[in-house]
């Protein structure tokens, strides 16, 4: 665990730095009266209902779901790429290639199915 101490130290330093900057403005900045009109969201001058009531297209979450699935498939390719030459060196290159070829065939089928089914269409 000791090799992680620098990472924690840097994270802590960055957070402290950021908080210090944020608090510096609240200390140094001018203090004017806050009014209701001033605190309105920068929209159209009407009182907003807050972002909570915004309706957003479902497309966004569909994109996120498809991202997760493809992201995992890509992460699976990393160890494969790492061991590729080792397998070739031991004469099992065709095996490792075909095992990924099957996986990639599924991946590509999935990708083209998504494209054909218009799941990735933004109008």
């Amino acid at each position: 665990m000791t090799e992680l101490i620098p990472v924690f130290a840097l994270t802590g330093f960055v957070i402290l730095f950021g908080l210090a900057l944020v608090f510096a403005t609240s200390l140094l900045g001018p203090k004017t009266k806050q009014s209701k009109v001033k605190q309105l969201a920068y929209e159209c001058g009407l009182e907003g209902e807050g972002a909570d009531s915004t309706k957003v297209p479902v497309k966004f979450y569909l994109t996120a779901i498809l991202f997760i699935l493809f992201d995992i498939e890509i992460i699976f390719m990393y160890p494969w790429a790492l061991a590729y030459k080792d397998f070739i060196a031991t004469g099992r290159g065709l095996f490792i290639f075909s095992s990924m070829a099957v996986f990639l065939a599924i991946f590509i089928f999935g990708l083209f199915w998504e494209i054909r089914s218009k799941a990735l269409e933004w109008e």
Partner: protein
Amino acid sequence: MGVDLFEITVNLVKMIFIFVMMVNAVPLLVWVERRGSAFIQNRYGPNRVGPLGLVQLLADAVKFIFKEEFVPGKGHRLVFYLAPVVALIPGALAFAAIPLSMPIELGEFSQIPLGLFTIDLGETYGPYRFAFQGYEIGIGIVFVLGVSSLAAYALLMAGWGSANKYSLYGALRASAQTISYELALGLSLVGILLLFNTFNFKEIVEIQSQALTFSFLGSQMTVPYLPNWGIIYQPVGAIIFFAAMFAETNRLPFDLPEAEAELVAGYHTEYGGIKMNMFYIGEYGHMLVASALMVTFYFGGYTLYPFFTPETVNQFWSETMGLTGNPVALLSSLSLHLVFMVKLVIFLWVFIHVRWTLPRFRYDQLMDLGWKTMLPWALANTILTAVVILIMRAAWS
């Protein structure tokens, strides 16, 4: 982190120095960006405050800190305040994991020579090995990918914490965009992994510091005077990586989240003063990381094969300049760092130049480009690389 006080101090100072370097690069880059855009558009840019307008940066920084504090009335205070702080983290953590030069290997020493006089330390220190980076992480690539995928939180927190519809919409757009392009980004790196077979940045750079060497139909081929750079094997991968990095940094031509005409200023509509500036630090930090990764993966990192490699630099300082011991290690590391910085600056300029050259995409074009063009191309690149490696090695081994 270190065995004695000296090593711990050096490591801490080094880390903070790298972070401060990132933070300070921001005003400089903003200045370059403003002057550069003015140059491209045949204007002057900031030129009043100080020589070449350089002091303008200082004036801006002071102005940012003395701005009034503001939270939208319906906003979620804590999330609103924390979002800019979170925006700083991914860039800083990722940049600290990238080697900026070769490690400094110090032998034992008991005095510090400073030109004419020397400081006697009294006792013997060393030997030490200081990596020229914040910290060495064995699985560098996965770590950097993981850390920079956290950038989506800052956007989402900013958008939601502001309680503003423009902000929320901008945040959703931004995060959908970053995650879409992360796929092409991750996939383009598979080609690099296939070639170099390691997650470690330092090993990747070391492989690239030699002459162009590859196996051709089972026999080892070497091309002298050409560096063993990733770009030579992976031109398509490099282009996809660079384009995806543009989208990750949310810069033009991919700056849809803050498309002024549609969304005011996107997720930082409600932010002002230093808090908005912190988002900029995050963005420019991402730019630095992108350029550094580009240099490390495809352009030889801190080496430039025939002229600047760890061996030649060592040789230059020890034989040509006649130095021995620790100064050689120190100076050769610093000169390689200079090589890295030159490459980094070139890529940063490309980032800035592209911003003022290309028009903005429409959102559907942007998503189409990510999912339907870049992802298939990255896949094709991966398959082609695998097939070529198999043909060049397998049957003849």
